[in-house]
């Protein structure tokens, strides 16, 4: 499998993990290690900026792990820029998963505020990975604004419904000049494999692992699925289709 490159940083794993919803920090840490992931998101709102007590960050101190702070909880571009700066200070990284969802029920990402925030944050030197709808035009607008990758959703976040947005994801993958990481909705290793076979550069999984009966085992299953899907993509899938039998060949004139 070839490496994933985002903003000049290379990754050997194409599986990103979210760190929410686990039964305990220890369980989360085990799952991350079992997944082989090299990049995990961590919600800024969960990082205790004041005290040094045992907390989520202490379980993420592994040399192979890149931390990707996310702005979950912010409702607009202004709050996102503020959160990004806090995250940069607290976690000493300019990498950022930009999430703006003013809608607390479905956590639908706000495309207008996300674009605005991306424009501003790119100027401030952030490496931005925005969580967005599977909207091909928005992806191109974000590219123009200087995003490092795009993270379109497969289905509403937390639903485990798989790749409901498949037809739009295909268009995004075809057109994109930055890595496409499919985020949200991936409910089973088969969804992850499918996303990778389609040509996604990576997937982000959280709920499906965190709430599994055995999160570590499920993390390993996802690791294998992502690897398998990617290798299949690189090997080029054979497609089943039929050529129409030509009743009057279109190229016969060349023989006349």
């Amino acid at each position, binding site marked *: 499998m070839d490496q994933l490159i985002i903003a000049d940083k290379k990754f050997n794993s194409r599986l990103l993990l979210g760190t929410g919803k686990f039964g305990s920090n220890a369980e989360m840490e085990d799952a991350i290690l079992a997944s082989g992931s090299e990049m995990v998101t961590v919600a800024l709102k969960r990082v205790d900026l004041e005290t040094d007590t045992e907390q989520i960050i202490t379980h993420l101190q592994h040399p192979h792990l890149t931390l990707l702070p996310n702005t979950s909880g912010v409702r607009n571009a202004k709050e996102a820029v503020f959160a990004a700066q806090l995250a940069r200070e607290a976690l000493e990284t300019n990498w950022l998963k930009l999430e703006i969802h003013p809608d607390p029920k479905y956590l639908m990402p706000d495309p207008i505020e996300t674009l605005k925030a991306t424009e501003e944050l790119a100027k401030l030197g952030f490496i931005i990975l925005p969580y967005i709808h599977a909207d091909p035009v928005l992806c191109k607008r974000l590219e123009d604004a200087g995003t490092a990758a795009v993270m379109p959703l497969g289905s509403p976040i937390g639903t485990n419904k798989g790749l409901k947005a498949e037809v739009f994801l295909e268009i995004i993958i075809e057109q994109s*000049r930055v890595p496409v990481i499919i985020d949200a909705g991936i409910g089973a290793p088969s969804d992850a494999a499918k996303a990778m076979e389609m040509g996604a550069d990576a997937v982000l999984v959280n709920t499906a692992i965190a709430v599994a009966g055995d999160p570590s085992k499920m993390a390993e299953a996802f690791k294998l699925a992502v690897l398998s899907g990617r290798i299949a993509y690189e090997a*080029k899938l054979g497609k089943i289709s039929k050529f*129409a039998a030509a009743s009057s060949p279109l*190229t016969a004139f060349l023989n006349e």
Partner: protein
Amino acid sequence: MTIASNFIDCFSQYDWEEIKASIYQKNEKDVLTALYSTKRNLADFMALISPAAEPYLEQMAQISHQLTCERFGKTIQLFAPMYVSNECQNICTYCGFSFHNKLPRKTLSDQELLEEVAAIKKLGFQHILLVSGEANQTVNIQYFSNAIKLIRKHFANISIEVQPLEEGEYAQLQELGVYAVLVYQESYHRETYKTYHPKGKKSNFDYRLETPDRIARAGIHKIGLGVLLGLEDWRTESFFCALHLDYLQKTYWQSKYAISFPRMRPAEGIIEPNVIVNDRNLVQLICAYRLFNPDVELSISTRESEKFRESIIPLGATSMSAESKTNPGGYAVEKESLEQFEISDERSALIIEKIIKSKGYEAVWKDWQAMQPL
């Protein structure tokens, strides 16, 4: 990952000889992979233009036909070129307008432009392609702006094929109502390019290569690309043209794109083609473009023979010129002035329309409405 900010950055990552070797090494398996795939990439395009794809030409034509029908319907757009000047300071050894060709030159005056317009309108055309040589002292942005202002109320859609201009100049023409700009690289082989374009502003390979970037940044609706078939290995040339298309489409995603297939034609005082591109090769190339890019417009000029033009209609073409004159004043003002090349299909636009209809296709004369106030 850094995104190329102009095509030169992208282009310089590729080596001509490596690409050529890679195309000629493609095998049957690569071709089948490309044929069966639903989304095809540049590697697939290479397989489809390779010698290995030649036995699969009929299959390619069938898929090309199907994709074109899905995207464009059974339609062929008609347009006419209007040559406004054959003055040229460039030496291009294949071109009738070349500076070294010591023949009388002509640039249309305002009155002559309008006479030509009237003659072209009479033939039925609403889409026009304004063409010139490169004479920056006389046929420049001022000339083009004036010409566009004069003719725009007479045509629904105006394209231009003139010397490369600056971004601001393209923006100015866009404001005036120019819909599309065509600029062919002629050759993507740096050294070959230099051989055929030894003198004049056109000898600057990089400036020409960056022109579509400038056109796109100026907000022009459609950009036309192409290589002059006959200068260098057509397969390798076409790979680079497809790479250019791919780069532009991903970078300037709001623009439309078109490919033309100029094959070298006889003209006064020019050289013979270095490479022969036969009909079979050209069909393969047209179908390969369609399979690679279902959305790109493919244009066939009157350089091609009657039989070829008739047969190519269901194979992936989307636009055609007809009854073309390739000399300034050729429609009305001065029918015998120096022409750029001899056309092959001299039939009238009305006959071409009939032929298009007889193939079960609709000839489209108007397919645009300018949104700028005149």
